[in-house]
């Protein structure tokens, strides 16, 4: 096809959808509407965020815009061209670019430059223009020196930039990001978003961004919130997020600063007006205003149980060093920490800092090159070490490890068999396996009704909980969780963290690898920070983020809540920025001046 035929006339509206429908047939034979009478528009150069639970129809909506799916009803116009006319098909698709969630599953080329060339090659762009486009696109995203490398040698963040370059080389007018940031760490995510913003400014591209991150949604000009195929809310971020109750009902969250505002406002029995949701600054201003005002008489603090710390150490890591190849520098070295009974230890650090290597040692998947990993054995009342082959089985019984995206480890015909796989391998009889499985199910909210079903029929969130149950059924005292909430929607994430806290309250110890600084600081008793394979901090969250700016040299982001609290501290010196739970922080603001706050 001649690329010149693809030129589109000037347009004002990039997308105009009127009452569009998309139906799919379910197993039971009835049709379900994945997109249900959705109407919206996207202007030229506009940035739209689409929010909503998993399965709310966001991706289907996005695919219809790129003509990867076709509406079953309603009227859809892209670049002011009717989407249902054959003659418009390539015009529309060649001007839309889409970046998907999983970086690995959208790279076609065997080398970086071949991958960028794939799109323009399909558009019959001739040489030398083709080579120029590839070079320019790679330069734009900052991957020029990787041009002849294999895509497998790139990091996750670089792979998503490669995907952007591939889209950019097609010179799109509309960029669709389908959860493109959800598998990236915070640093890569920031870089990715900055790149998208730059593209918008330089090239006037419209952006449709599907995301689960509320802070990202605030970058948009307008937000659409979807639920069960319907667009439930539509408007600017403050318009949408000020409808706090609806937002929460739809399984979404507020940005931390807005959350804090609502918690504070609760004590004053008001709901903050829309203008307070304009930005972090306006929310802080509103909080100031409230705190300066009269506090209602009947406002009272919540009584919290103070947890008695248990000093019993059940896992010890001493001078651990490990290297994947003998020639290179050790991947990790000088790692020293311990895990106490009933505590949550968070391990944080950027991608590639050695987190996965460290946790793979804790149940003997990897054996230390130097140093020792020891686990307390209740049955014998002494520590057993992972270097003894004979103890490995025992260690795996005590220490359960759940890697990132554990749903990919399910393999049995039924959920029941899969959960029982671990206990069977430990040599337990049928009766014990059954009992352990039944005990594990409620811990992570797996209903007994799914037991006879195939794990592959379940939804993503259910699969993850089944995988979690499979590890819990082995009866571990220590649980190692690598990014247990990654890729889930806000409600799903909250649920997982809820289970983790409950497991801790039952006396299990948890080692948690997380990118989410707010969640790690809130939930963890202690934090281990890794940087380039070295341990740079080990202590409580409060110590980590306390005055001495160590975390800056560790290149960590502060928790979002802490940023807001530090801003407020300037006017209210009693504000305690070392509190990482929104309601506790709100209480410290509201009741702090009474001098009732005691640092835990």
């Amino acid at each position, binding site marked *: 096809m001649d690329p010149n035929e693809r030129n589109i006339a000037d347009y004002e509206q990039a997308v105009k959808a009127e009452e569009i429908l998309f139906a799919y047939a379910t197993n039971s034979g009835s049709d379900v509407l994945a997109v249900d009478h959705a109407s919206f528009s996207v202007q030229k150069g506009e940035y739209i965020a689409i929010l909503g639970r998993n399965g709310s129809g966001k991706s289907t909506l996005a695919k219809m815009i790129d003509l990867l799916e076709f509406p079953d009803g309603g009227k859809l116009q892209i670049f002011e061209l009717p989407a249902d006319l054959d003659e418009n098909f390539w015009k529309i698709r*060649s001007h839309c670019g889409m970046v998907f969630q999983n970086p690995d599953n959208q790279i076609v080329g*065997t080398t970086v430059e071949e991958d960028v*060339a*794939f799109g323009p090659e399909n558009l*019959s762009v001739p040489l030398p223009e083709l080579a120029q486009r590839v070079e320019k696109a790679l330069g734009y995203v900052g991957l020029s020196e990787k041009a002849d490398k294999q895509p497998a040698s790139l990091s996750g963040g670089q792979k998503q930039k490669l995907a952007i370059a591939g889209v950019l080389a097609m010179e799109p007018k509309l960029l669709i990001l389908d959860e493109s940031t959800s598998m990236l760490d915070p640093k890569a995510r920031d870089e990715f978003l900055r790149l998208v913003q730059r593209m918008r400014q330089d090239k006037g591209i419209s952006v449709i961004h599907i995301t689960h991150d509320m802070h990202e949604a605030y970058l948009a000009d307008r937000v659409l919130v979807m639920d069960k195929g319907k667009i439930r809310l539509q408007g600017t971020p403050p318009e949408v997020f000020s409808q706090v109750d609806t937002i929460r009902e739809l399984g979404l969250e507020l940005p931390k600063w807005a959350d804090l505002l609502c918690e504070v406002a609760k004590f004053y029995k008001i709901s903050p007006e829309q203008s307070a949701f304009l930005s972090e600054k306006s929310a802080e201003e509103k909080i100031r205003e409230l705190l300066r005002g009269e506090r209602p008489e009947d406002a009272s603090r919540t009584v919290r149980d103070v947890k008695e710390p248990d000093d019993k150490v059940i896992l010890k890591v001493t001078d651990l060093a490990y290297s994947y190849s003998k020639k290179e520098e050790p991947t990790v070295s000088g790692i020293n920490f311990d895990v106490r009974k009933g505590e949550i230890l968070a391990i944080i650090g950027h991608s590639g800092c050695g987190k996965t290597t460290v946790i*793979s040692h804790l149940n003997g998947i990897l054996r230390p090159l130097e140093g020792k990993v020891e686990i307390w054995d209740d049955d014998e009342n002494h520590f057993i070490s992972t270097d003894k082959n004979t103890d490995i089985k025992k260690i795996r019984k005590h220490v359960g490890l759940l890697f990132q995206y554990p749903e990919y480890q399910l393999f049995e015909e039924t959920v029941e068999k899969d959960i029982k*796989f671990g206990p069977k391998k430990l040599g337990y009889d049928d009766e014990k396996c059954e009992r352990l499985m039944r005990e594990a199910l409620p811990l992570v909210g797996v209903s007994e009704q799914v037991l006879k079903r195939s794990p592959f029929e379940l939804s993503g969130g259910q699969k993850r909980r089944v995988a979690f149950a499979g*590890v819990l059924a082995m009866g571990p005292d220590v649980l190692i969780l690598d990014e247990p909430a990654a890729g889930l929607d806000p409600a799903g994430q909250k649920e997982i963290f809820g289970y983790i806290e409950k497991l801790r309250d039952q006396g299990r110890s948890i080692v948690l690898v997380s990118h989410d600084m707010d969640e790690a600081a809130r939930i963890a008793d202690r934090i281990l920070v890794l940087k380039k394979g070295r341990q740079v901090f080990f202590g409580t969250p409060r110590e980590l983020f306390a005055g001495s700016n160590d975390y800056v040299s560790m290149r960590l982001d502060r928790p979002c809540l802490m940023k807001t609290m530090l801003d407020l501290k300037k006017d209210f010196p009693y504000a305690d920025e070392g509190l990482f739970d929104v309601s506790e922080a709100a209480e410290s603001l509201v009741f702090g001046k009474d001098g009732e706050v005691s640092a835990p």
Partner: protein
Amino acid sequence: MMKDVSIGRFVPGNSVIHRLDPRVKVFLFVLYMVTIFLANRPIAVMATFAVVLVLALLSKIPPMEILRSVRPIVFIMIFIFLINIFTLRSGEVLWSWWVLKITSGGLERAVLLTFRLLLLILATSILLTLTTTPLKLSDALESLGSPLKVIHVPVNEMAMTISIALRFIPTLVEETDKIMKAQSSRGAEYDTGNIFQRAKGYVAVLVPLFVSAFKRAEELAVAMDARCYQGGVGKTKLHPLRMKGSDFMWMGILSVLAFVPLAVDFLTKIK
């Protein structure tokens, strides 16, 4: 870790052979095969060996690397040698024991056959596997196979399939490693027990691997659609294969070289 998995045994380099257009290499490969099959007298085989040696020198690949490509077929070479040495009987008897007999004709035949097999492997390695990336090879086959399009053979699609398979090998290797670690955490064992127990252990790896490969395939298909893939029709190429002057020159030189053993064979026969 396992991030730089290479397929085949490509040895990077910048020699004449490395730079040669892959289509020329495929052509020369066929030519040398013919030569090796036709040259069957000792003098001609020696001449072929000399020619292959020239190719090896031109490729600048370390001799150890070249020899390593012979290793997998050593067993077959020994087998062919033994079969021939004991079954062919002509000329005088050199050695005999019980029913076994070695004759001078049998010995000559066995040595020559084994040696020709060795030459065949060496020529293949030097011209193709060691000096050509799998991607270039698939490009060459796509280009050489393009006449087949007339009879509706989907040549472009086949080349695309090969290149995607190559692209996903490192990804799947990494994933296998991850799944194996996850399943060992759940107590799976791959290295203990008898062969059936081990095979059963691998089910726990293969099932998730297949499930995820299918999911990847599905997502990749959508991503390719989104980037306007429409088969080979009208597709341009970033690095099209283009014959340069030097390609023609080396094609000539190396083709002539391929005829040398045959000429030697012919000339010595006349005398």
